[in-house]
């Protein structure tokens, strides 16, 4: 049939899309009023948001910033906006914000907490943004010890001696490896630093301090509180739970039956127990098992529990990432002669972690918010402090303002984490560019 044949003589060029699918109107149409159902939902949600703002905004705005008690607040609001107007009493935040941030940390030492926070940002920068010079990572490695010293004070020798624990572990590994093989080396590398930290670090640093004393005023853990406490526990937990989670995930995949069952047992046990239980164990039970006389710091205990808890979840998240990798990646790495650790580090983990970024950051955010649970075992994190503030006769009965302020600060932290994770995902997306 000659009539059906068709030949295009000239190829068409590109033409712009029709107005209805481009521009603001196009966007509105596509996203908000795409269908009958969509339009109803749009109108309902806009109405809902409007009602909430209608109720909340006046409360936020018609407020008092300068009273010194809840009663004065109410009087000031009545005076300014008329009787029976319900307004926020931000004066409590004005009076207590330092406490909510620093807890009972001595005010003449605030600079130490501030400095630690700034240095935290500096040490995070090279980890978060690979474009920065790699030498900065040395500072990141030293930061935990420096931060510990800044916050708790005392002799400078203690963090130095604590850092030496890693050197001790390395030496023990070399020695045991030579004497009795790799397994012995690994065990020695794990045990030696623990022994060093628990029994030797304190006396050694005391000894060094008595010879050359360098130190700043010590601040005991009981004085820690507010956001400073949340950030301390949260960041330490975050920083430790990722590497531990990776090791647990790898252990769970290992061919060594004992290692594998240990990892599975640990992960399943921790996931089966509420964090609150672990925190109670940390606050009460743990002391029973410690040698009498040892003073095992409560914040340290809590950090350990939070870390263990979070790393069990982290392990499962990473296991999901590992399972999503095609088998070919393992085989290609093997066939190129990369050994187990190089394969994990250079080929598998970069991809598995990338896949798991949303879940990992979700875990981080969860962990950070879970730090508020420490109020239940009596630590004075921001939530713990609200009770403390309400115990003051002046502020008895104040609720929304405190929780609102705390929520705002938590939101800033969590939202930045979430934005960063989206940035990272975009940056690492090399699949379909």
């Amino acid at each position, binding site marked *: 049939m000659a009539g059906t044949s068709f030949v295009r003589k000239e190829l068409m060029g590109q033409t712009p899309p029709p107005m209805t699918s481009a521009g603001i109107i196009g966007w509105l149409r596509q996203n908000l009023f795409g269908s009958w159902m969509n339009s109803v939902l749009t109108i309902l949600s806009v109405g809902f948001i409007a009602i909430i703002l209608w109720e909340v905004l006046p409360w936020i705005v018609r407020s008092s910033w300068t009273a010194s008690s809840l009663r004065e607040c109410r009087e000031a609001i009545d005076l300014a906006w008329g009787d029976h107007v319900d307004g926020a009493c931000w004066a409590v935040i004005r009076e207590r914000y330092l406490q909510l941030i620093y807890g009972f940390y001595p005010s003449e030492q605030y600079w130490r907490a501030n400095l630690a926070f700034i240095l935290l940002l500096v040490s995070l920068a090279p980890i978060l943004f690979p474009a920065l010079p790699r030498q900065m990572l040395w500072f990141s490695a030293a930061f935990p010890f420096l931060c510990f010293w800044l916050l708790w004070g005392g002799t400078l020798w203690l963090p130095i001696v604590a850092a030496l624990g890693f050197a001790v572990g390395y030496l023990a590994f070399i020695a045991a490896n030579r004497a009795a093989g790799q397994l012995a080396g690994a065990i020695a590398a794990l045990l030696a630093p623990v022994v060093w930290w628990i029994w030797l670090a304190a006396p050694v640093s005391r000894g060094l301090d008595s010879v050359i004393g360098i130190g700043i005023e010590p601040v005991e853990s009981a004085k820690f509180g507010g956001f400073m406490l949340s950030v301390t526990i949260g960041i330490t937990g975050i920083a430790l739970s990722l590497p531990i989670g990776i090791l647990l995930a790898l252990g769970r995949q290992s061919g060594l039956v004992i290692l594998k069952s240990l990892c599975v047992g640990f992960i399943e046990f921790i996931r089966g127990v509420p964090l609150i239980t672990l925190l109670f164990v940390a606050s009460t039970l743990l002391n029973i098992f410690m040698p009498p006389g040892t003073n095992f710091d409560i914040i340290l205990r809590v950090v350990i529990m939070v870390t263990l808890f979070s790393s069990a979840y982290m392990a499962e998240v990473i296991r999901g990432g590992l399972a999503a990798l095609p088998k070919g990646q393992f085989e290609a790495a093997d066939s190129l002669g*990369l050994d187990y650790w190089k394969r994990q580090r*250079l080929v598998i983990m970069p991809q598995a972690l990338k896949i798991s970024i949303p879940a990992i950051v979700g875990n981080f955010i969860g962990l950070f918010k879970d730090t508020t649970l420490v109020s239940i075992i009596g630590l004075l994190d921001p939530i713990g402090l609200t009770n403390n503030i309400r115990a003051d006769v002046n502020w008895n009965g104040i609720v929304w303002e405190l929780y609102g302020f705390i929520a705002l600060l938590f939101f800033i932290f969590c939202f930045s984490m979430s934005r960063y994770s989206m940035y990272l995902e975009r940056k690492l997306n*090399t*699949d379909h560019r």
Partner: protein
Amino acid sequence: MSELLTDREIDRSHMEVSDEVVIEITGMNKWFGTFHVLRDINLTVFRGERIVVCGPSGAGKSMLIRCINALEEHQKGQIVVEGTILSSDLKNIDKIRSEVGMCFQHFNLFPHLTILENCTLAPIWVRRVPLKEAQETAMHFLEKVKIPDQAQKYPGQLSGGQQQRVAIARSLCMRPRIMLFDEPTSALDPEMIKEVLDTMIELAEEGMTMLCVTHEMGFARQVANRVIFMAEGQVVEQNEPEAFFDNPQSDRTKLFLSQILGH
């Protein structure tokens, strides 16, 4: 399946088979549970040989060449590669893997690394070659497979044929003395098959010892010096390409050839 693979004359001046044994497989057996995947394989490969392995799907072709660089474990028999006995000793496995390059059906490039990084990764971390030198070597081999201008891209941005050529270059960067290919063209669109086969022909022209699982019978005829036919986990027939194609002996081979050549 096209019979004629390349229109240019193949340069056979370096394609010599020496009498030096590079791979020696004796009485090798492999099971998956009770399933006998490889049955009593005996195979000797000499330096400079270009062997094509063919056979129906599930015959154990992949298993055979994967056993050679220990991606799969064999349970019985012996494999000796370049004088190293393949055992569960990790040192030997690493040694053999650094002598043997491998290309996969699905390329298996590392998607998070650029083409150049894909090629320099193993030389830097396994052979401890300095970065500069590794990059120069990588560019040399990328030029050879004719994609030096893609070096800074990511694998996901390349076509299948280009990816497979990068995979070949990546293996070559480790300077292997033997190359294994597991159906390197079966995941490719027809127009890309030729560019990959051309690369493989050039490799053969330089005298590389090659073991290729492939159904490209044109390649087998023109490049191979030996064709091995496998079925049900065993070597059923092996011969020089001429004799193999023109005068197959066993019925299974005849059946297979008639199916694949479409007669």
